[in-house]
């Protein structure tokens, strides 16, 4: 969507964004302990050792949220929208909008099941989340 903020990848995060462009959610893991972590770092925050990348399930639950009434650039004209913290099945959390779910407190239960989808912003594709069991493609 035009006008929305565009992240600028760094060497540590390049895999995340490259895979998002392929509509896959990949996350870093500690090679020594096999633990997932986020955000991406050059070295494991657990051991200082090597980092490996693996595809995540894309399954998550709603951990927390606000319904923002003051739109950021690129978010104008759609009414209030959700900015959520989603808890990935693998453990780490991400921030996401919630697509195809009404931005109303009654529609948003902490713990509700979500799944990853992707939003194309031209030069970059950003992971987003929607209610689990939604249609494929975005």
């Amino acid at each position: 969507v035009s006008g929305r903020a565009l992240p600028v990848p760094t060497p540590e995060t390049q895999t995340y964004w490259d895979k998002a462009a392929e509509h896959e959610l990949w996350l870093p893991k500690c090679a020594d302990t096999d633990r997932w972590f986020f955000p991406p770092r050059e070295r494991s925050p657990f051991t200082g050792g090597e980092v490996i990348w693996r595809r995540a399930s894309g399954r998550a639950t709603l951990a927390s949220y606000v319904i923002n009434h003051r739109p950021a650039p690129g978010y104008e004209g759609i009414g209030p929208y959700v900015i959520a913290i989603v808890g990935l099945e693998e453990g780490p959390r991400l921030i996401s909008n919630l697509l195809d779910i009404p931005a109303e407190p009654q529609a948003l239960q902490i713990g509700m099941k979500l799944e990853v989808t992707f939003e194309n912003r031209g030069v970059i594709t950003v992971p987003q989340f929607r209610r689990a069991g939604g249609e494929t493609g975005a």
Partner: protein
Amino acid sequence: MSGVVVVGAAESRQLGVVKDQSAMSLATSSALDALSQAGLTLADVDGVAAVMPVVEFAYALGVSPRWLDGTNVGGCSYMLHVRHAVAAIERGDASVVVIGHAESNRSQVGAQPLPFDRSSMQGQFDLPYGASGTFARLTLNAMAYLDAYGLGEADLAEVPVAQSRWANRNPRATRPELLTVEDVLASKMIAWPFRILECCPLNDGGGALVLTSAERARDLDLAYRPVTVAGSGEASEGGSAMFMENLTSFGAFRESSASAMRSAGVTHADIDHLMMYDSYAHLPLIGLEDLGFVGRGEAVNFIRGGATSPGGALPMNTNGGGLLYAHTGMYGMFALQEAVRQLQGCAAAQVEEVETSLVQGIGGMWGAAGAVVLQRG
């Protein structure tokens, strides 16, 4: 307990919408007022700390410091400046330190632009999702907290309601009206569940503190009794709500407050005044619990029962807090100023017999925390 005392504490005379003073001028004029309270002049100052560019601040003052601290970890930076200044004075690296602060975020007079790095962790993973302000970032974990304890929007509203009893007694408060839960819930929605009265206002203003050794203070002609920096702590966690290990508790609150109380040699029972950083209404709830004044999930009932209101057991945010008194973007200086005033005995809403105050700050988006224990004498 350190041998370092606050001998001057001044806020900018103008606070609110200030169109005829730059941020730098608000800071330097506050510094001069604070120095005059201590009977000191610029010639006595050999240490300078500020979040604003500290070299420019020292130069604007006309000081050639031999000690500088430009620590910027957000709104609690001033608690860290106090902590660092104590160490410097005890070590002899500085004898008189000025900690200055001002922002002109409302009127943008000589204001420093806020950095937005699109390759930072927040720039990549947080800001792209339509976060148009701190009200949609620092607030992100609030629903997790409310949900964990079966609380709702009316519970969150108790925070500004209680603090309005203090703000109402403070002629400088930005929002001096006495509030009910209904008033708060009827105020403009900003980012559910946060209404505007649960979000800090944006003011222009500043303040300054002057610190020196207790030994030197004995020879000064002080306008107010000295306030001892009894203990301090600083810590950091992740730098975004999503990185918190636990969305309902902040490790840096726990660490910094415990360090401050331990180094001061005080326990919770000794704390008779609390400044708990409150740019948003959920911070005092999580803070009261992380600092150990109440059990998990008990903060709302503690506040609703009047414990933090005038006459309560733990007077909190007695200037009205960042929510109702004033907030320039980084609030820590104002929290420290109010604690000093309470200990000097000259607060607008003075609490009787305050001996020990704990000032707890947060910086960034659940990034850093700083705590200071101040004592009378």
